């Protein structure tokens, strides 16, 4: 009698051309023909990212994520929380990236045995076992060219012989006995602004997704506290498990024993209710005349509320209507490119000089005789602002307890565009 199995049953990795290049079964083997349902959905989807994340089949459910142009397709047989599966898949992707530097089909194939060992270690009978990168690294050493050579010579292995120390401690995210000659703790405050700006330039929605990523290389068991100049900004926050929530609630101070290495300390969300400054504006005039085979295209960019910092790495992209055959545009700076097949216009602007605003002007040629396109292109803007967090979030101080040495500390701020869209 085969009973319905709980949790993740199998995992298939599918590349962009639709080939399964790896499969892993934690319970009994599920025939890879189950993926046919996935391929059907893939065919139906107009874009690779439009494949629905949950697909029902007669006996299973397929839950997939698309990362690095690889579909990670998990097979489950009965009621399992889909977010649980998706979060786990994300963890798998992160682990691969952590181990192999990149998460590509080639990298996975190059390290297939390690991949297999990792997957086995991460899930037992469908229950997540060890998903923290520092625990995994104690169990299975990441491959390096040097280690491969050394192992070949000495006959030693990639597999740790010791029980990972973090696995059962109260701080499972940190191993004991960490040692560095240079003790350093760096924090990056990175904010992404998502916004929709309407035709007339007014803001429809604007929100900031912020994260604080840390790179902490400190000896021993340091206990850190991080305080902010303006913690009130953070009313919607998600923490790394290391953060002591009670302390945050009571004092608005982040107190934690950090994991070793790179990790995301917290992510936060500043929504439209608070004031979200819009750092860039676009003046646009994109017009098609009825009965003419020409259209006008004019775009000018300028800085708005940038807190005195410059806009860098500005990149404009826009999906022009299907009727546009080609463009003849003239950028005042940077380079532009129009792909007549995908109709994607992209303009690499670079830095914006407030004294000399960049513009892109010219004409578009349309299919002769075709009617005027109905849809208005949306303009997508990417940019970066160095040394500034748009929300105004500022770290006040970072203190270390529990260890005697003096670490190097550093905080960096950056703002960039997330999904920043201007409708025309």
């Amino acid at each position, binding site marked *: 009698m085969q009973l319905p199995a709980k949790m993740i049953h199998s995992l298939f990795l599918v590349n962009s051309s639709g080939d399964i290049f790896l499969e892993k079964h*934690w319970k009994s083997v599920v025939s890879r023909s189950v993926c046919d349902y996935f391929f059907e959905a893939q065919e139906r989807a107009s874009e690779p990212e*439009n494949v629905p994340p949950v697909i029902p089949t007669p006996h299973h459910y397929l839950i997939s994520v698309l990362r690095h142009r690889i579909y990670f397709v998990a097979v489950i047989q009965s009621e399992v929380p889909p977010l649980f599966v998706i979060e786990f898949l*994300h963890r798998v992707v992160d682990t691969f990236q952590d181990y192999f530097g990149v998460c590509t089909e080639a990298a996975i194939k190059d*390290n297939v045995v390690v991949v297999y060992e990792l997957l086995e270690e991460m899930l037992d009978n469908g229950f997540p076992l060890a998903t923290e990168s520092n625990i995994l690294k104690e169990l299975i050493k990441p491959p390096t060219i040097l280690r491969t050579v050394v192992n070949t010579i000495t006959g030693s292995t990639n*597999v740790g012989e010791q029980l990972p120390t973090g696995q059962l401690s109260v701080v499972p995210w940190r191993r004991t006995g960490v040692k560095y000659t240079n003790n350093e703790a760096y924090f990056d405050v990175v904010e992404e602004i998502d916004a929709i700006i309407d035709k007339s330039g007014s803001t429809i929605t604007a929100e900031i997704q912020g994260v604080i990523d840390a790179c902490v290389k400190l000896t021993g068991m340091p206990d850190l506290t991080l305080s902010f100049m303006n913690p009130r900004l953070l009313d919607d926050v998600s923490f790394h498990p290391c953060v002591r929530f009670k302390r945050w609630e009571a004092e608005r101070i982040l107190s934690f024993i950090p994991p070793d290495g790179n990790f995301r300390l917290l992510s936060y969300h500043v929504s439209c209710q608070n004031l979200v400054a819009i750092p860039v504006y676009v003046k646009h005039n994109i017009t098609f005349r009825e009965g003419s085979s020409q259209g006008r295209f004019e775009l000018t960019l300028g800085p708005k509320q940038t807190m005195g910092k410059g806009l860098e790495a500005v990149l404009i992209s826009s999906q022009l209507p299907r009727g546009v055959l080609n463009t003849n545009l003239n950028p005042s700076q940077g380079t532009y490119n129009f792909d007549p097949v995908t109709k994607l216009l992209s303009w690499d602007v670079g830095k914006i000089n407030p004294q000399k605003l960049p513009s892109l002007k010219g004409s578009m040629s349309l299919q002769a005789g075709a009617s005027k396109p109905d849809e208005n292109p949306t303009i997508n803007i990417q940019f970066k602002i160095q040394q500034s967090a748009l929300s105004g979030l500022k770290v006040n101080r970072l203190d270390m307890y529990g260890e005697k040495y003096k670490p190097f500390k550093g905080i960096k701020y950056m703002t960039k565009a997330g999904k920043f869209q201007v409708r025309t």
Partner: protein
Amino acid sequence: MEWANQLCENRQFGSKMTDSKYFTTTKKGEIFELKAELNSDKKEKKKEAVKKVIASMTVGKDVSALFPDVVNCMQTDNLELKKLVYLYLMNYAKSQPDMAIMAVNTFVKDCEDANPLIRALAVRTMGCIRVDKITEYLCEPLRKCLKDEDPYVRKTAAVCVAKLHDINAQLVEDQGFLDTLKDLISDSNPMVVANAVAALSEIAESHPNSNLLDLNPQSINKLLTALNECTEWGQIFILDCLANYTPRDDRESQSICERVTPRLSHANSAVVLSAVKVLMKFMEMLPKDLDYYSTLLKKLAPPLVTLLSAEPELQYVALRNINLIVQKRPEILKHEMKVFFVKYNDPIYVKLEKLDIMIRLASQANIAQVLAELKEYATEVDVDFVRKAVRAIGRCAIKVEQSAERCVSTLLDLIQTKVNYVVQEAIVVIKDIFRKYPNKYESVIATLCENLDSLDEPEARAAMIWIVGEYAERIDNADELLESFLEGFHDESTQVQLQLLTAIVKLFLKKPTETQELVQQVLSLATQDSDNPDLRDRGYIYWRLLSTDPVAAKEVVLAEKPLISEETDLIEPTLLEELICHIGTLASVYHKPPSAFVEGSRGVMHKRLPARTGSGESTESPDVGTAAGGSAPEAAPSIIPSQGDLLGDLLNLDMAPPTTSGPPPPTTGMQMGGMDLLGGGLDSLMGDESEPLGGDIGGSPAMGAGFGAAPAVMPASLNAPVGGGLGDLFDLGGVGMPMGAYIPPKIVWLPAMKAKGLEISGTFARRAGVIQMELILTNKAMSVMTDFAIQFNRNSFGLAPAGPLQVLTPLGPNQTIEVSLPLSTVGPVMKMDPLNNLQVAVKNNIDVFYFSCQYPISMLFVEDGKMERQVFLATWKDIPNDNESQFQIKDCHLNSDAASSKLQGSNIFTIAKRTVEGQDMLYMSIKLSNGIWVLAELRVQAGNSNYTISLKCRAPEVSQCVFQCYEAVLKN
């Protein structure tokens, strides 16, 4: 060719370093070769061979034939090799059960190894080998491992019990493993607890009636303790387990909620959603007037919003669940409409879900925004999405009555685009709008008829035919139109055929003389030439009716149809309750009952939300009708003829019952006698609302308990005038001519002593929509001053100089110059205290000087600050009463018209004025340069020089400043 050789070598070198070499062997006899290598004496070669076997296995090649050879490699002290062999065993033991027995001895030995890692690995692997013969040998090692001194082994063993149960449930019960597992819930290590919970939950799923997870307050307490310390995955198991518990009373419920809420800030979205599930369920037990209840409601919104900024797959699952949550508790996300606005590069599955939720959250307050968005979406490229957007416009019309007209005109605009599928969708939804609001929008039928030819989809054709039939008497050529459809009758889909039959019969009943032939034709087509039983039956029924009793036919066919309900696609309440108990699961994604998700479903228990069992004193009846009716008995009959509607509204809003809405003061009851009835209704409510406000705000009983009731009073009262006889109330007799904006007198900001001889005085003004800082610079020093420049610190409203300070000539000793500096409001923003504080730095050739000044906030009032009346009404009720503040202006001797025109000069716009018993009430709106709206109610009593002003604003911190402006403007 040398480069080619080199490349070849490189590749070889490259492949030697990685596992990809295992993929390269494609030649025949591969298995044979591997066999030889597996049996090699050299350890290294053996390991390489096992790796090759594993690699082949991962890509789906069948290497089961190597089973005995691989098992032979198991007896090794090399941990990596051992692991690899275990991997292989798990995959193939099932197909080679006899061979698998060979491995048992090694397993049993490994279960007693000194290294806990090996003990755990062995017990874990054994559990994965689904071979009956092996499971018999598993029991003893498993029993030991469950009591192992090392928690790592214990937690692994806990999972193994579930595995074993999956293979042989009877064995697990006979061996008493279930009891051991239950004991592990009290283990000292949180990870062990979490795994024990996970294992028990899994086992319990196949034993619905067993009392395995015997949850009682003690065990709940243990789980809650473990919750704080275990891994994120363990937290999910524990939270899902908690969700099955039913607390004894509201106190226990609250204490669990309190301990679960910190999980809402977890980075793992699955933890967050599981926590939301627990809270949504246990909240049901909390009395709604409890402070904690509203605190909890507020806490639920941010994490749900945060889920929407995650990866699209997570968003999708989150959105499906939010869809349930907004149906159950719309109040949680009612202010978060904007996060559901669609970005053009969202994946289609996210777009469609967002759209659905937008409609659910649509209300009178936000409908303008929603419609603007929907119209935008209707011009996008993706056909599915465009269709759904058009449908959404129709649904908004049905849901928010006030917006119906705007929706219809938007739909007509869209029909004008002539985009085929847009037109068809629009016609389908317009049919629904007709059904909801009969005899209101029929004027658009002509436009619809113009598009008859472009309809090629059955649903749109059927909708159009329905419209023609239903309104046949108003369409001159209805018979021609229907006849044109009749030509291709047999090629139409059933849906269209049925509709056509009914429409022609309707037409006949309305215009019997001209259409006899047509009806004959359709009846014979339906009954004689069709083999569709539904169509034939309907045809015969109509025929019989028409021939025997035309009057009865009229009664049947032209009967008045029930109006369609507000939201047709709401999930049925019992299912919704069950789904709320399953938030985060597949059931919640598919909105289907959980029993549909268990294969060979074995007695699934249906979960229900717990009922409220109060321990406290909260005794008020949840029945709104009795509560409201009972509290104001003597006033009820005379005041409000529309009281039923009012109660209806309250019920619909699904808000807390107004606990003790105090009887309206008798004076108001009296004064209304002479006025028209509807007006009276409004009066009393307004009176109700405002009079106790004079005293204190929060404490007034009429405001209802805490949140729910108070806003509910407002919409009901204000809805009435919109359509009814109260229009005149808002008819302004005529606001006097606007006067110029108030400009405060200049004051000295920077005395000369503090600035090496430079004195600065100034003021702020708004002239023709431009904010100006007007400065007088006086040089009281002995030397000439040059090179003036000015800068502002960040401030609350982003004020910044729009240009340089225009002091072109040097300023000689004792000279004075007046400069006017235009300001913009796009500078960097930082909240100041007080709000209107501005820190300024002025530089000249001598030094830099700093001073701070306060600007009247009135200069930020923009010219387009006059709000639409209806928007005003909606906004007023939408802003929570907590945001209302009240002030007194003393000694002001203006009458209300003079005040109004004076205020208008400063862009404070009077929207409506009404007079009650000599007291003038002015309703006013103000818009700040950063888009903040302030709504005001100014009460002026003739003969009383004290004004009362109530300000409502989403950003209540500006109220104080706004009040100061009122005072300044009115008194100058």
